[in-house]
């Protein structure tokens, strides 16, 4: 009997999970379908870019700076063994632009802006603001969800660029200013080694994909949250956990396609 009931438990969880994925997919498609107003009335999107972007800005800048400084230290230690300290600039820049920038900025964005988005939408639903909008003949997907979606999707690549730039600067401070690596070779090797399309563009594509994943998860969790305090707080936690996992898994898939065989 225990086996039957635990099998039944597993079965119902799987079925529920599949239903939720279905709902989330439909929610995503509806968001795209009703995105017209987000561009026709672009100020709605700009407002959301401002709130999600500015909210994460400080944490992104500070984190970027320190990650770059750590890369400077660790990179120098390792490169020195092979006598190639002059490649420090290349190492710092490539690590940031290809991997650490997009992934870490997305993780920080998910925990800062993503969780706030879930809580905001969840509360709007719990306090009947979403129902009120529907009764005013305004489609909440078009008016509330889509601008936040595009605001997040546009913000994250910009934040990622700032993260990577400050990271490079952090690597420069540690490597060149503090340790004394030659400044000329730091910059020139970096410039020679970083390819725009292969490295920068792929990094931007990654952060765009992460932006879609994080905002869709955050908005769906908020929209789908039970209209109670526990419902909203549970949804906020799920947003952070699910989007972090999604970022890391998607990163592996994208990396496998972008950077194999070189």
């Amino acid at each position, binding site marked *: 009997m225990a086996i039957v009931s635990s099998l039944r438990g597993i079965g119902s969880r799987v079925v529920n999970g599949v239903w939720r994925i279905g709902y989330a997919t439909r929610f995503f498609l509806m968001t795209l379908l009703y995105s017209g107003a987000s561009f026709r009335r672009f100020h709605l999107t700009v407002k959301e870019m401002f709130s999600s972007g500015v909210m994460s800005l400080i944490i992104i800048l500070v984190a970027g700076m320190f990650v770059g400084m750590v890369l400077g230290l660790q990179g120098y230690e390792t490169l020195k063994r092979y006598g190639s300290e002059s490649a420090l600039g290349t190492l710092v820049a490539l690590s940031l632009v290809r991997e650490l920038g997009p992934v870490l900025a997305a993780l920080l964005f998910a925990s800062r802006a993503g969780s706030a988005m879930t809580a905001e939408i969840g509360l709007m639903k719990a306090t009947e603001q979403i129902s*009120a909008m529907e009764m005013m003949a305004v489609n909440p997907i078009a008016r509330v969800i889509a601008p936040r979606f595009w605001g997040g999707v546009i913000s994250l690549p910009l934040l990622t660029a700032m993260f990577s730039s400050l990271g490079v600067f952090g690597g420069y401070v540690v490597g060149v200013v503090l340790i004394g690596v030659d400044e000329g070779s730091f910059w020139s090797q970096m410039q020679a080694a970083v390819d725009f399309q292969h490295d920068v563009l792929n990094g931007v594509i990654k952060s765009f994909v992460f932006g879609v994943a994080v905002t869709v998860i955050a908005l769906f969790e908020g929209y789908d949250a039970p209209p109670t305090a526990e419902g909203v707080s549970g949804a906020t936690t799920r947003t952070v956990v699910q989007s972090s996992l999604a970022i890391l898994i998607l990163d592996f898939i994208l990396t496998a396609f972008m950077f194999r065989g070189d």
Partner: protein
Amino acid sequence: MSSEALVEIRDVNFAYDSRPILKGINMTFPKGKLVAIMGLSGCGKTTILRHIGGVLKPTRGYVKVDGQVIHDLDQDGLYRMRRKMGMLFQFGALFTDMTVYDNVAFQMREHTDLPEEIIHDLVMMKLHAVGLHGTQDLLPAELSGGMARRVALARTIALDPMLIMYDEPFAGLDPISLTVVGQLIRRLNDALGATSVVVTHDVQESLKIVDYIYFVSDGAIIAEGTADDIRASGETFVHQFVYGEMDGPIPFHYPGGNYNMDLGVGA
């Protein structure tokens, strides 16, 4: 009730997952009148409003608004109909990220191409109508409960709806705000030439302002009439409700089986 009906509810039945909530509801809201729906919490009052707004679809019967069966409309038709309706939600449901001004201007910006100067004047007029001129730059969090309810009222009437629905507009208000909101509901209904439906369990306040009352219990209408009919009603349920008595057909005890058995005393 003589004049022409704006809303007709005929034999409406509704169930949430096979649990019946509405059982054969018949109501008529004549144009220009203020009608109350009263009953205990959970008796289905909000569910009736949701049917009028086209959010829910009856399992039997129909709801007609302005001559059209609301649940036969497609999405566009429904949205066009809802523009002519206003709904005041329990606790107001103001948009918390917008100022009072932007809340009241919301529907004007979404549904009209009016220039900003005209929207400004309209917002000022609506705020003036609810006595809150001068609060336009405040955020909802900075308002008292009674003020928030009045701002929500201003937002509800922003586009001069023909039908205004109020879901427990008196809930959680102090006695003075309660009278103010009650008088506003009456005045706005008459000034706009609208038809209003008030869902409430505040008997004393609503008896002062409404034209007609339906009493709902457990998903069915058990009494109806004008305020005077209701006050004079001999119906024991209505009497218990109006005068807030503990003894009557509405039991104090949940139907929870045999109390003595649970105590182990035996039946």
